[in-house]
């Protein structure tokens, strides 16, 4: 009764063997569940020479330690594996309803190895687990397959389903795993790994209860958070057309200061992530024209068409992930969009809008709605797909690929029709789409002709749609996280909201400071990035939501909630050691699998080499290599190589844990 179930389900798809495996308490005490348990298990069990799409790779579907514990904002699940896109540690994080379903079947995680001879799906309920034939849903998109399997396996309630689409089936290296009608665990190529195992879906119908040490304490704490969120309303006079003006004002603030994260929750509550659609252009956060342009290439008369009010106008109901009281999601009616093929879709995330909008100079919001639903159904990563399209357009513009290569598509910036045609080819792996479906790094290697200059990635993974020249700590995480390119680890702005210094003795205290400090490599900035990374590992070990995390410790305090669940009574400093341990295992996984962390440092274009010629980030170049060195050093990793030093692996007791 500490919030975790104490066992995992293991499936060998080659032999069809299904078994329970107990996990000792000491593992949870060292790495929590979720990301930590996944890192621990995969480090131990995947051999270093394993082909990411071969039988030795392991795919883990993870719940979090706090999931279904009575805590709020802890319904995230994770897919973990050796990534086929980076060759190193891979993970993808997702909301929806699948995380509690794993625990209600009695497990903290489900691990798959081997390769099935024919397409199968796993069904689990309170009576046991069984592999079933999936040939009737192989070839179906994620939404169709989920509906069929829910009906087929329905008992008292509809079961929860994680499923791949054509992207995963076709081993597209940018494929993800979907649940709840198109919410995607999109990154790291986790869907390709699932497809390589011929595992179409996992269907969970358990009803077990999760017990914790102090349910009354957790209940009271959750109520306090829920009450604050209830009051966190966005001013009614505010309309979306005003957002660009906020974006214009933001760069005028030359100082940084602590921010009350609860007050920022109101934006997510009202708009969701699309609030950034039109703030991010004038302030420079949103990448434009394959990261080579600026707001000068995509001016207000174009980007105002992405006003989030136009997205809310299609929202027919709010969508909350499991245990969420913010509700940044929504279901949108798109039945009159284009050919009417899709009736509704999850409200697009900002990342998708930017990937298929400013990054490609597209301002057709209907096309963006259509594309995101198309990619959700194919089960493909919108960030990676938009980035691949941007890469292809720039290659076409510069004569590296021609109409002959594209099968007659004339690629040009801002042409939504051409992009839809190109993405269709990617989904079906036809012609040029076959090359682009494996992401920009692989595509540039296959195309050659100096095309790598247009391939914007970190260690193979396309970065999230936020320019680190605006917030340099973001660039450190793009480059230094063991799953590079991820935008949800941390940033300077997030640090100022999180108040980690309240309970972590070594986290730098923030008062008012000049923002120029963020651009200068230093131990102080590195300690912030280390604190962000370590705390994010705790969030991912607990199954927590990033938007709750950035509300900050005064409101959503993982240390408090973990103590309610486990009764461990640990301090912030002690929990942060766990966070550092998880992050270091992920880095050790990369080292074990031959990844050179230096090779994951973001490419020149993203860090301003050459600098942008216009926009708010004009003339800025980030000293990213120096920044990453400081980050590694402050993690106790070698500042030149990024390899964890013996001293830190000893202090974190990793040799005993991983032996």
């Amino acid at each position, binding site marked *: 009764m500490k919030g975790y179930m104490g066992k995992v389900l293991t499936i060998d798809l080659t032999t069809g063997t299904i078994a329970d495996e107990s996990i000792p308490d000491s593992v949870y005490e060292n790495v929590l569940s979720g990301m930590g348990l996944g890192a621990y298990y995969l480090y131990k069990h995947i051999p270093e020479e394993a082909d990411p799409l071969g039988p030795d790779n392991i795919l883990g579907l993870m719940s979090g330690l706090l999931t279904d514990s009575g805590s709020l904002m802890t319904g995230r699940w994770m897919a973990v594996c050796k990534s086929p896109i980076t060759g190193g540690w891979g993970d993808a994080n997702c909301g929806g309803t699948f995380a509690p379903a794993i625990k209600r079947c009695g497990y903290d995680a489900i691990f798959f190895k081997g390769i099935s001879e024919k397409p199968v799906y796993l069904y689990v309920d309170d009576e046991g687990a069984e592999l079933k034939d999936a040939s009737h849903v192989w070839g179906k998109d994620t939404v169709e397959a989920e509906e069929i399997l829910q009906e087929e396996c329905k008992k008292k309630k509809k079961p929860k389903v994680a499923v791949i689409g054509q992207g995963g089936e076709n081993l597209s290296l940018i494929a993800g795993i979907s649940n709840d009608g198109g919410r995607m665990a999109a990154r790291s190529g986790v869907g390709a790994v699932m497809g390589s195992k011929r595992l179409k879906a996992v269907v969970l119908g358990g009803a077990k209860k999760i017990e914790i040490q102090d349910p009354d304490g957790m209940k009271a704490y959750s109520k306090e958070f829920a*009450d*604050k969120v209830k*009051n*966190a*309303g*966005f*001013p009614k*006079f505010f309309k979306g057309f005003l957002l660009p003006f*906020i974006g214009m004002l*933001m760069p*005028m*603030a030359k*100082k*940084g*200061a*602590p*921010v*009350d994260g*609860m*007050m*920022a929750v*109101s*934006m997510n509550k009202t708009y969701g*992530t*699309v609030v*950034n659609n039109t*703030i*991010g252009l004038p*302030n420079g*956060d949103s990448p434009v024209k394959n990261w080579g342009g600026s707001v000068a290439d995509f001016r207000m008369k174009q980007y105002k068409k992405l006003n989030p009010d136009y997205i809310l106008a299609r929202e027919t109901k709010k969508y909350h992930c499991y245990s969420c009281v913010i509700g940044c999601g929504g279901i949108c009616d798109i039945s009159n969009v284009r050919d009417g093929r899709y009736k509704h879709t999850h409200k697009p*995330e*900002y*990342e998708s809008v*930017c990937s298929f909008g400013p990054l490609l100079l597209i301002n057709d919001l209907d096309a963006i709605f259509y594309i995101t639903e198309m990619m959700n159904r194919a089960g493909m990563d919108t960030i990676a797909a938009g980035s691949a399209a941007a890469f292809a357009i720039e290659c076409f513009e510069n004569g590296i690929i021609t109409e002959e290569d594209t099968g007659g598509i004339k690629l040009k910036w801002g042409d939504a029709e051409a992009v839809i045609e190109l993405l269709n080819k990617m989904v079906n792996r036809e012609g040029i789409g076959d090359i682009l479906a494996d992401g920009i790094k692989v595509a540039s290697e296959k195309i050659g002709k100096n095309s790598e200059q247009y391939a914007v990635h970190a260690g193979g993974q396309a970065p*999230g*749609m*936020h320019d680190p020249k*605006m*917030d340099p700590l973001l660039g450190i995480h793009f480059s230094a996280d063991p799953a590079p390119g991820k*935008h949800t680890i941390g*940033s300077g*702005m*997030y640090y100022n*909201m999180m108040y980690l210094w309240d309970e972590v003795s070594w986290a730098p*205290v923030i*008062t*008012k400071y000049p923002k120029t400090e963020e651009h200068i490599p230093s131990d102080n900035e590195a300690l912030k990035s280390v604190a962000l990374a370590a705390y994010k590992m705790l969030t991912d070990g607990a199954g927590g939501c990033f938007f709750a995390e*950035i509300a900050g410790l005064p409101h959503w305090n993982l240390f408090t909630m973990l103590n309610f669940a486990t009764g461990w009574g640990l301090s912030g400093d002690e929990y942060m050691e766990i966070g550092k341990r998880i992050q270091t295992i992920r880095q050790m996984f990369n080292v074990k699998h031959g990844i050179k962390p230096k090779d994951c440092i973001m490419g020149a274009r993203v860090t301003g080499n050459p600098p942008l010629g216009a926009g708010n980030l004009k003339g800025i170049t980030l000293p990213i290599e120096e920044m990453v060195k400081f980050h590694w050093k402050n993690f106790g990793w070698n500042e030149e190589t990024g390899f964890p030093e013996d001293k830190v692996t000893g202090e974190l007791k990793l040799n005993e844990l991983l032996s």
Partner: protein
Amino acid sequence: MKVKVIAPAFCSFKHIDENGYMILPEGATLNDVYKKLRVPLLFRKILFSSVNYERVKLRTKLKDGDVVSFLSVITGG
């Protein structure tokens, strides 16, 4: 009395100590906080703030331990 004030960076922090507290006389109002932060008059009615995470009027009297926060814009997604 001591009130926690989490103010935007463009405000004056002269009256906020290193732990984020502002000392105010008994009976002080939200408007007094705005004055000490040197928020221009024009902005006082449109700058979105809360006391203990509830929207209140500028004339609302504060009490010891209150938390005054301001709407902040974030980027991310």
